[in-house]
């Protein structure tokens, strides 16, 4: 269609845009009156985790603006209102949107709409507080989840530790090698003392060479104590481990109490209870073992017993008459030292393996608790309220609505006029008729009526 014809059609159908404009304005007015709600908006900044250094893992987090997708938020706000409002009634009236910003910490707008301005402000402020708490809860790792994530690694470490412990215990039992380093040191000391006694001895051999009853008893006690070593260490380790777990969980619970993350706190408290039970059981088993065998500090007891054996052995040797007898006693002890020293490499190796396995397990346990505790920062420290809720002026929205309606009406009317003009069959004007048919109009016959006569 030619522009000229289109413009003429617009001029001819002036009532179309007029009608559509009237309709749009009436519709907008009706819409704004029907949906007339006050709105309030609070501004909140959320601290983002720092950028991780290469190789460092920072667990993903839920954004603050997804909190409004949770029914829990509206339910909690409704509960806080305590006026019979339900969460469903608040659905759609609370929204959290990211405020566009080029840089810096993300800023969110927490908006609430209600029938009155005061209620909208109240809703928005409550929504901010509840959203802060929810944000902390959503982004708090669950201890169970973390433990489950680390479980394969933990199981492996425990298996390695058990194997190393069993190997060392087996070695110690087979070779009478408990507290091998201490015993070796004591044996070296004993031999040194025996050598001194030989140097001070004089005359030929004149002794039976039989050890005294006291020395035999001391040796027997030492043997009993060393035989307890494996189980003693195992029970002691279990008790220490359970105790460490309790200490860490207590720290975590304290942290969660501060942060207000109720779900995570509940889970941590359950874990703590279980850890305390395990600690009590382990400690009871350890105490029972110590009571049963009359040892409270096995390492100290063994060391003390070694000293006693050494003293008795030196005394026995000193009581022998003659160099030969003392030499014979020295030879026995040297043989024992030789045996102990020959065991030392394997003992050291096995002991080192056990220590490594224990360290690994301990490290994993630390890591589990570290992940849980380190990520559970109080929500207040992550979500900062920049501006409490204030009422939002509806003028802008009103203008936008009317502007859009008017623009839409204009667009639709122009389109409608174009379509009407395109399909319209009109009678052309006299000029167009003459131009198109190339013939002049010689007369126009009006309607035959009685009126319009020219009498007179």
């Amino acid at each position: 269609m030619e522009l000229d014809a289109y413009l003429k059609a617009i001029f001819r159908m002036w009532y179309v845009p007029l009608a559509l404009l009237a309709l749009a304005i009436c519709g907008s007015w009706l819409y704004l009156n029907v949906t007339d709600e006050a709105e309030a908006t609070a501004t909140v900044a959320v601290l983002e985790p720092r950028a991780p250094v290469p190789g460092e893992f920072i667990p993903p987090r839920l954004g603050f603006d997804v909190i409004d997708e949770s029914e829990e938020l509206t339910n909690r706000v409704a509960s806080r209102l305590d006026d019979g409002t339900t969460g469903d009634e608040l659905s759609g009236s609370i929204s959290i949107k990211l405020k566009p910003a080029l840089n810096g910490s993300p800023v969110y707008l927490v908006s609430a709409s209600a029938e009155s301005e005061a209620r909208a402000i109240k809703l928005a402020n409550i929504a901010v507080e509840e959203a802060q708490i929810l944000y902390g809860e959503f982004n708090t790792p669950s201890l169970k989840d973390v433990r489950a994530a680390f479980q394969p690694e933990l199981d492996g470490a425990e298996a390695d530790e058990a194997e190393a412990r069993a190997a060392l215990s087996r070695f110690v039992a087979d070779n009478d090698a408990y507290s091998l380093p201490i015993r070796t040191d004591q044996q070296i000391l004993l031999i040194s003392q025996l050598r001194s006694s030989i140097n001070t001895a004089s005359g030929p051999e004149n002794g039976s060479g039989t050890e005294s009853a006291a020395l035999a008893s001391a040796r027997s006690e030492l043997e009993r104590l060393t035989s307890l070593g494996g189980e003693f260490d195992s029970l002691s380790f279990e008790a220490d481990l359970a105790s460490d777990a309790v200490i860490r969980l207590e720290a975590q619970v304290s942290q969660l109490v501060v942060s207000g993350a109720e779900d995570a706190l509940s889970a941590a408290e359950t874990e703590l209870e279980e850890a305390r039970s395990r600690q009590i059981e382990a400690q009871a088993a350890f105490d029972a073992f110590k009571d049963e065998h009359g040892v409270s500090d096995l390492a100290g007891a063994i060391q003390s017993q070694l000293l006693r054996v050494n003293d008795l052995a030196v005394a026995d040797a000193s009581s022998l008459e003659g160099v030969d007898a003392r030499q014979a006693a020295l030879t026995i002890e040297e043989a024992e030292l030789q045996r102990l020293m020959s065991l030392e490499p394997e003992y050291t190796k096995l002991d080192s393996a056990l220590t490594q396995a224990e360290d690994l397990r301990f490290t994993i346990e630390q890591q589990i608790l570290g992940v849980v505790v380190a990520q559970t920062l109080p929500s207040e420290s992550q979500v900062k309220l920049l501006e409490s809720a204030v009422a939002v002026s509806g003028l802008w929205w009103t203008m936008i609505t009317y502007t859009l309606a008017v623009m839409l009406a204009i667009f639709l009317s122009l389109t409608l006029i174009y379509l009407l003009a395109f399909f319209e069959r009109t009678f052309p004007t006299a000029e167009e008729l003459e131009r198109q048919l190339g013939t002049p109009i010689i007369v126009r016959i009006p309607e035959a009526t009685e009126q319009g006569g020219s009498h007179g």
Partner: protein
Amino acid sequence: MASVIPKLRTGHGGLNIPLLGRHEKSIPLVSQYPDTPFSESFRLLALNVLALTRNKSRKSIAVMSAFPRDGRTTVAVNLAVALAEHAQVVLYDRDEVSARSMGRAVALEAATGYGADHVSRLGASDTLREGEVEVSAKQDSRVWIADPVTASRNGSDDLEGIEHLSNLGVFSVFDLPPASASANAFTLAQKVETAIYVIRQRPQDMNVHLGIREHLARLGVDLIGLVVNEY
């Protein structure tokens, strides 16, 4: 001036001939609306037609239009009556019923040579049929009405008949069938040579008119003007 179109009746007292067609609405006649814009427009049309055909040897005009109910017969009849103020007129009406009925009603001597059965003369106080024709308003008006189809069959040369009438000072007005429905319209228009084109003022497809205009130009018909029917 006389009203020349009868009001047809059927049944008792009727014409006792087949009814081939009728106007849904009676044709307004200038005699019914004297001294109104309606009658004045036809007087103006008659003057224009006389002026535009002054230099033509053949005093004849074909009234054409594209569609039925464009007001072609109204224009033709009223033009004939308006022309009758200036000359004797023969109206060739396509409506065979009216032509024959009028022909039977008033048999005149055939000055045209077409025979009394097909040519009629309306005089000052002539009555076509009892009770159906208005009294002539102008004493000296004379209008003949003839069936153009019949007219075209009479005589050895159609042009000769029209020229003969012209020589006698008689103006011929042809009411042709709708051009979009009958090729006879073009046949007759070509014989008449001069035409006016009636267009009713209503939304319509101008391409039809443009097509008819092209045909007329191709056939050598001189379209001297447009008559816009505004009622």
